[in-house]
């Protein structure tokens, strides 16, 4: 164990650029270049005469890469304490930007999440990510911070909820969900399992509530619950009787009274849950209390979920319904996903070759150079291409996590983990969306998708991590 940490730490205080993590930098550059190649292929127009015209997306992206390089150099040259120092002001500025956007922003695809300056569009949420990551790092690295203390936990949840609320108000929920990725960081920082297990349970229930009927969920949970206590106690007969009594009661209620099957099941399950809770407390069988609480929670959560769903915008409802397969419209939202899967799926092992992808060339893939840039990789480079690109992302995420561990102090670690979490979320959602694993959310593929905001933001995000990692010994500067 000790050896591992030794191997991760770095000796001596060398010059700044000498300490830059070249692996992370190399992975960053590789992904940006692959992105540029893909954008070129996706937007190449053989009928256009001038290859270097600024009309082309790849030329614009090249300009943004240049801009990002400048930003990267500037960040690497900055004193690392600045990041600690400016985290709160950046956060406040970010929130103000979001609010300003809400008031004066421009609406794109139904989301009022953009500023427009001439031909340049900026999405403030990209930069709010950076500010939030820095603020999270600063809060969590503050003296005597304990994530498992309610007040401290409330602080960081507050830090996340404030921008999230504004983003949802902007109707850009997809981008806002990235803030949920911070649970990754919180886990690393020792969040108790009594909090993240319910969180996972909640997410699972949320998804199940769309796919399955509530009756099915309750009955399944009831059986799982019985199986759990059976394993703990070994009293077979009691459990058989218990379940039999439950089902008899349900059927009796449904048949003999004017109640519907759903209502009967709800009533019986509720009575059973309350009764079990009382029994658990009275007999001090605390191992029962835990699942009973989960059960009651589920009974409250699932109907609430259904209710909340009706509060969503129709297009959001459609996306979720399409994703869970309850609604099919091949020409609507599904169309994008089907076309993107056709493009990727027709790539086979080695792909069709650079610039040879028919689905990309002939516009069958929508948003082919922005959100669906991964299709170009899939169609033109095949499974080997996608394997390679996914490997690069995994390597970069691993590297960031390792850098976080290596820094050895909380601010840097939380920050590096935040970057890793944001990257993971983006890659998972974006690639998952192109192959039908996730609903369509309008989230770009980091470093590869065409777009200035996204590229510059991710560059800054990653470069700060590299900068923090580049000099690990001068932690004195931000001892409060």
């Amino acid at each position, binding site marked *: 164990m000790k050896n591992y940490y030794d191997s991760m730490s770095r000796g001596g205080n060398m010059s700044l650029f000498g300490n830059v993590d070249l692996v992370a930098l190399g992975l960053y550059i590789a992904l940006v270049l692959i992105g540029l190649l893909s954008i070129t292929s996706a937007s190449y127009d053989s009928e256009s005469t001038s290859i270097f015209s600024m009309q082309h997306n790849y030329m614009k992206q090249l300009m943004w890469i240049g801009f990002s390089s400048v930003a990267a150099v500037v960040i690497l040259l900055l004193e690392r304490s600045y990041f600690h120092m400016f985290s709160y002001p950046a956060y406040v500025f970010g929130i103000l930007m979001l609010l300003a956007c809400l008031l004066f922003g421009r609406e794109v695809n139904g989301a009022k999440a953009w500023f427009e300056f001439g031909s340049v569009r900026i999405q403030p949420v990209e930069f709010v990510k950076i500010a939030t990551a820095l603020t999270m790092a600063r809060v969590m690295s503050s003296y005597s911070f304990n994530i498992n203390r309610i007040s401290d936990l409330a602080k960081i949840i507050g830090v996340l909820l404030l921008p999230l609320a504004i983003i949802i108000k902007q109707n850009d929920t997809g981008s806002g969900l990235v803030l949920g990725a911070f649970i990754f960081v919180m886990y690393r920082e020792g969040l108790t399992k009594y909090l993240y297990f319910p969180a996972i349970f909640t997410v699972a229930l949320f998804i199940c509530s769309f796919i399955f009927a509530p009756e099915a969920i309750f009955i399944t949970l009831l059986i799982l619950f019985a199986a759990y206590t059976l394993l703990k106690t070994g009293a077979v007969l009691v459990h058989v009787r218990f379940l039999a009594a439950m089902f008899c009661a349900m059927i009796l209620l449904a048949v003999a009274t004017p109640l519907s099957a759903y209502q009967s099941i709800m009533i019986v399950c509720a009575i059973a849950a309350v009764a079990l809770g009382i029994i658990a407390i009275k007999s001090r069988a605390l191992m029962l209390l835990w699942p009973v609480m989960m059960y009651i929670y589920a009974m409250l959560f699932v109907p609430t979920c259904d209710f909340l769903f009706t509060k969503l915008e129709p297009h959001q409802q459609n996306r979720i319904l399409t994703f869970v397969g309850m609604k099919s419209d091949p020409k609507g939202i599904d169309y994008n996903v089907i076309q993107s899967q*056709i493009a990727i*799926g027709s*790539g086979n092992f080695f792909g069709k070759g650079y610039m040879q992808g*028919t*689905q990309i060339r002939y516009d069958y893939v929508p948003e082919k150079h922005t959100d669906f840039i991964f299709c170009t990789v899939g169609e033109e480079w095949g499974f080997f291409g996608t394997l390679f690109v996914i490997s690069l992302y995994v390597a970069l995420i691993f590297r960031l996590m390792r850098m976080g561990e290596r820094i050895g102090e909380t601010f840097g670690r939380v920050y590096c983990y935040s970057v890793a979490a944001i990257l993971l979320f983006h890659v*998972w959602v974006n690639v*998952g969306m192109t192959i039908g*694993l996730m609903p369509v959310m309008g989230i770009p593929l980091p470093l590869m998708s065409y777009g200035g905001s996204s590229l510059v933001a991710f560059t800054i995000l990653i470069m700060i991590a590299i900068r923090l990692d580049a000099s690990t010994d001068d932690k004195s500067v931000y001892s409060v």
Partner: protein
Amino acid sequence: MTRYDRGFQRFLHLRLVVLLAAVVILGRLFYVQIIDDKYDRMATANIIRRPEVEFPMRGEVLDRNGEYLVRSRVCYDVMVVTSNIPKQGFDTVRMAQILGMDIEKLRSQISKARRSPRAPFLVTGYLSQEAKLILDEGHFDGFYTRFRTAREYPRKIGGNLLGYVSEVTAEQVKKFPYYEAGDYIGVGGVESAYETDLRGEKGVSYRIYDTHGALKGSYFDGAMDVLPVKGSQLVSTIDGRLQEFAEELMKGKVGAVVAIEPSTGEILVMVSSPTYNPDLMVGRERNNNYARMLHDQRNPQFNRAVKAKYPPGSTFKLVQGLIGLQEGVLRPRDMHPCSEGYSYGSRKMKCHAHRSPVDLRDAVATSCNAYFCYVFKDVITNPKYGAIREGVKAWNEYVYSFGFGRKLGSDFYGEGAGFVPTPEYYDRKYGRWNYGSVLSCAIGQGEMGCTPLQMANLAAIIANRGYYYIPHIIKGIEGRDSIDARFYERQYTMVDSVHFVPIVEGMWRGVNEWGTSGGAKLEGWDVCGKTGTAQNPNGKDHSTFLSFAPKDNPKIAISVYVEHGGFGATIAVPIASLIEELYLTDTIKRPNLVEQVLNMTPNYSHYDKMQKKYDAARAAKAKK
């Protein structure tokens, strides 16, 4: 250290989460890209959409002298993809002018097309090559043309004979895998009978389209494309000039003319009247023209020459005589009396006034009813058969051997079988029956039904003295050495050649000495003929004439049948004679007779009444 330890545990957990996420994504990618190949097919279907058919030129049909009966000309379908029409629209007036369409019609077509804006829609067909060039120059975005061919008829003859070309129906598409919706197929006549030769082979080309439907080039540089192969040219047995002349003569009359070259079975003329100009079945007005014909109660689309069932009338007496001779119940010198008819039981089969008694030759020449009643009676009541039933059966076999009561097996589409009554038929009709019940068959009346083709074939059989070649309409197919072998085989009747001598003699006398067919006499050519006057329940008698010429080495055998034309001699004889004259001498020396025939219009009150009733019913229906 414990804190680090727990942190390190969690670091490992989180790495596992990242790896798990990557594995799920890669697993799904592996499935989509490598295992499931449906996406490959969908990708191809996306860009190609559907293979594009290139239509071949349909084969031509020549007449026996090498002149075109049917040609194919180039024309174009005008297609539109409305999503490619510029936002500011296009010059509708100019477009309508170029396409030769009504503006309103064009607008309604465009709005129909807009229902599925990206799918090609047929605006109109039959655009000439010149108009196509003007359209191309106009650069109307969204519009394009598709190569097609249309039929063209230089002589405008033989509507029923040649058939026409039409789009395939849904049932045909289901039944024949060769065809797809939008393909053309021959309907009726030669077009249908020789469809597989005429249609050629469709070509196919694979072109790539982008998502907006814009053409992006050919798939694999056209390596998979197949060029269309032009249909075969056919050489018909028809004599175009003769056919046109015959159609002219039959104008205003309902009936049929069939002429056959006896030495080969080649059909020289086949007219079904009323006929129609085959050009009516081509072009934009096609549907209207077709509907008009459909409502015509004289039914121009019905090919009487091969489908109608006419009573053969007196011409059938020839067959009767031949059977009697072969059976040995009749000798040419046998005399039978005729007291203006033939009495049996309390009834009498009437005859016209002529000298009595007569022998076979004169009976043929004068067309004596009584004589052939005696002959028929002798045939079917021949003691050697024991019962009348067996006698009729034997008689049936003879009649079948002449090609009656069955399909001849010609190459003509929709050939009818006619009808010859059998003992079983009489059982069903009468229960108990005797000689008197079947007597009307003796003179080709009653239940007897023959197609004009069968009657012409009878003329050919007599001309050949006992055999025929199966009549056919196509004698050569491009790329093939011969037509079907069955057309080269002699088909013998059950009557020996020697028995034909007195019959031919009688037919010769009927034309050249004294008899019913005098009008068919042609100086220098020994024309033989037999008239017929067939009674029918719908009005005036049908007029028919059966003839061949010359008597020795006959070149043409012909049957003319005019519904309600009265005596055979009145209409059928001059028509047949004029056709023979043109064919044999290449000129018409009797223009007065032509004039006379053209002016003959039988009274078709029967059809007129039907038409009136039908129109009234349609009008009533339309009102509703």
